[in-house]
């Protein structure tokens, strides 16, 4: 076919011109950039919702909004951050980095890659449009428990359901693509245990996505038919059970939290060895620990449901299984610390983010351990302690990993260096304000303040005030981040091919601004060994 052959030759000449480049692109770097900018936009949208929430909670009483609208904000904040910001950002990082790291020219299924991105703006549009519908946006929390989401939900819920379907298609296609890429496009000389940890963690994450997202699709499909076609899955009057919804949701939901954190583990495992100037400690134990975490994530889901009603044997099983996750996670934290032990450490911006990740994510891990203990969870359940916990793992965990990755690989993406002074100011601004924001929420929760509530008793006023002020400062820090990234793209000083001298990885053997197609010829065994993390 002449057109296909002709256009195939074009690949060596770089991207098309104009807007259509972005619509039609099959290039992993273009698609990665689209994902990252989309995720950043959604981060700002979800962040704006969070500012609304913290503004209402600044002082007791109802000041700014109706409780119903407050609930819409918490719901949409969660949904947008999980499905619109964190997950697409990691897929964007995977797109950008995986082909470069495994010595491939591009992803295995580039047209499908394009589609998995181009579903997202439509799904996000449908989701956000619910704000303007009669009855408002979904207001039942991002976990959309039945019967709040079935019997008592506004009409816009059906649009939300279809948005989730679309987001699920996108994630599944993205995951299939990454599996095919890692297993089939890897340089022939690269063995599995030569792969960088970001590639490993994403490969394992892909299996989590393919296992979990279809179950979510099943859950929302049951919601759809319960709402509109008279089925009784979550309706006790027909023999179903609202608790069934929670089981199905958390069978998806617990793997989902590892979907959002495993790639961040990978990122940190790249950055710490580079700035500690030592090889990664325990490469293979990192791989096995990641796989163990992924496996365990499928068999612990009901620890989100200790107060829902469950036989005691079930509570005990889910508690012990949950505790077990601390073992492989502990292995990872130990390895990061052991990598830094007696290293010649320097603290460039990516390292600051990575070290604070280890510190703050571990706090979130410990509070998770507390929540996993049944008798303790009876006290903590549905309080601000839970909110503090999952924001420590998702903001100072997942989001920290993403920001660390952006600073670490920005020179490779743009060929330019960001402003180190500004980036450090931004880091300290963010890391202090995020703790002012979330740390007091532990105390609020332990004192009994419930989550998802627009008003509260007077004894919670002080900590809420502190938390809100921290929240506004943290929110404002993203303006500086935006400036730093755009300033780097437009005015950055040229970077060398390996701006971090002790960084390892095939991506650093490419040109300073990685060429449009990463590797047209697979790298040699010698090069792969020289750049391997497993040495």
């Amino acid at each position, binding site marked *: 076919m002449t057109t296909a052959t002709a256009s195939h030759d074009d690949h060596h000449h770089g991207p098309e011109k104009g807007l259509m480049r972005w619509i039609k692109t099959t290039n992993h770097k273009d698609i990665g950039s689209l994902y990252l900018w989309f995720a950043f936009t959604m981060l700002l949208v979800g962040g704006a919702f969070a500012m609304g929430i913290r503004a209402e909670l600044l002082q007791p009483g109802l000041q700014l909004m109706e409780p119903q609208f407050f609930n819409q904000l918490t719901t949409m904040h969660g949904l947008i951050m999980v499905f619109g910001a964190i997950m697409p950002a990691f897929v964007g990082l995977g797109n950008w980095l995986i082909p470069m790291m495994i010595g491939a020219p591009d992803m295995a299924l580039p047209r499908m890659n394009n589609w998995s991105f181009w579903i997202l703006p439509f799904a996000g549009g449908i989701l956000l449009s619910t704000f303007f519908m009669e009855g408002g946006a979904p207001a039942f929390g991002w976990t959309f428990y039945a019967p709040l989401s079935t019997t008592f939900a506004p009409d816009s819920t059906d649009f939300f359901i279809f948005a989730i379907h679309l987001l699920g298609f996108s994630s599944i296609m993205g995951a299939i693509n990454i599996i095919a890429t890692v297993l089939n496009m890897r340089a022939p000389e690269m063995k599995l245990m030569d792969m960088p940890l970001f590639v490993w963690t994403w490969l394992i994450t892909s299996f989590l996505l393919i296992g979990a997202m279809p179950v979510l699709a099943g859950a929302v499909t049951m919601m759809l038919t319960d709402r509109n076609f008279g089925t009784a899955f979550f309706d006790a009057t027909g023999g179903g*059970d609202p608790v069934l919804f929670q089981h199905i949701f958390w069978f998806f939901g617990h793997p989902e939290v590892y979907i959002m954190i495993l790639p961040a583990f990978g990122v940190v495992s790249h950055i710490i060895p580079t700035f500690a100037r030592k090889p990664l400690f325990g490469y293979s134990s990192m791989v096995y620990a990641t796989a163990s975490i992924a496996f365990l994530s499928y068999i612990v889901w009901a620890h989100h449901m200790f107060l829902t009603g469950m036989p005691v044997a079930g509570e005990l099983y889910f508690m012990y299984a949950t505790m077990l996750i601390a073992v492989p996670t502990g292995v990872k934290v130990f390895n990061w610390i052991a990598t830094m032990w007696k290293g010649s450490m320097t603290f460039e911006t990516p390292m600051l983010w990575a070290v604070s990740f280890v510190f703050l994510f571990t706090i979130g891990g410990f509070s998770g351990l507390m929540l996993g203990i049944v008798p303790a969870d009876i006290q903590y359940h549905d309080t601000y302690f839970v909110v503090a916990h999952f924001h420590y793992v998702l903001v100072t965990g997942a989001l920290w990993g993403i920001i660390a990755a952006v600073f670490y690989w920005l020179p490779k993406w743009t060929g330019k260096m960001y402003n180190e002074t500004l980036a450090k100011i931004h880091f300290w601004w963010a890391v202090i304000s995020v703790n002012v924001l979330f740390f007091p929420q532990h105390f609020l929760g332990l004192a009994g303040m419930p989550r998802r509530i627009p008003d509260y008793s007077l004894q919670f006023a002080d900590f809420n005030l502190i938390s809100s002020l921290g929240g506004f400062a943290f929110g404002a820090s993203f303006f500086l981040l935006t400036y730093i990234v755009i300033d780097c793209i437009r005015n950055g000083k040229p970077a060398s091919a390996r701006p971090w001298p002790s960084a390892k990885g095939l991506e650093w053997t490419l040109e300073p601004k990685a060429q449009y*197609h990463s590797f047209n010829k697979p790298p040699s065994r010698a090069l792969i060994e020289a750049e391997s993390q497993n040495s």
Partner: protein
Amino acid sequence: MSEQEYYIPDGTYWPIIGSIGLTTLFVGFANQMHGAEWGGSVMVLGFAITVFMMFGWFGLVVNESNNGIYNKQVDRSFRWGMSWFIFSEVMFFAAFFGALFYARQLSVPWLGGADNNIFTPDLWNAFSASWHQMAFMAPGSVTDTVLQSGTVMSFPAVPATGIETATPAMVVDPWGLPALNTALLLASGVTLTFAHHALRAGHRNQIVGWLVATIALGVAFLGFQILEYGHAYHDGLKLTSGIYGSTFYMLTGFHGFHVTVGVIMLTVILYRVQKGHFNADNHFGFEGVAWYWHFVDVVWLGLFIFVYWL
């Protein structure tokens, strides 16, 4: 194209057309459910765009494949893609099977007062738990109780029509049409394998014969399934007859949808065989469809055992 070079396809408009199609379909569907007059036509339009996209995108790939643009590596990528797509489908069905097991083993017995559920006799005095007869309760009994207690302001109407005293065998006899359908689908798996052997041996007439047989068996399955739906519906088993009706129709319905898609895929493959698109070594299109068909087959076995038989 040589084996040493990588293949990267050029960009197309099909993905964005697909996104527009699916969005139109879903927006139309949601509005249709909410009573908008235009919802149905928008939904049909969205469906048409999606089908157009699939014709265009698959057609493009078939053309490129026939022109020898793809190499073995591309073929392997397609294989990984198809196998993990099928796995994702397995997990989708797993959600519905999970709902079935949960309702059957836990929620229905609990509603009947199993374990320590002390509230059941008060709220559900007309109730005795039995898996197949979830639309049993006398109309109004539950709703009234709840309303009198004053704890719930509005409550969904109880499904009023039901199978009053149905025993499992009266709901759907597994050894009638379902057993016949099991035989049909299993046979279709065998005929498809014969077609594959014929393809590898290069006997086109045999391929066509076995493929036509497979398609005929698939269509017969669908016909009997429609017949059986008619019987079940006539006997009062509906989507609205409680959790058994819900799981029964959702599981068999999604399965029937997958069989329909599979029959369409087999028909396309039949057309492509007649056009001479495949040879003994290079026929991933055929194999991908065969995998899908076997997957549909295995899901049916699960359905037959857990929905009809036990």
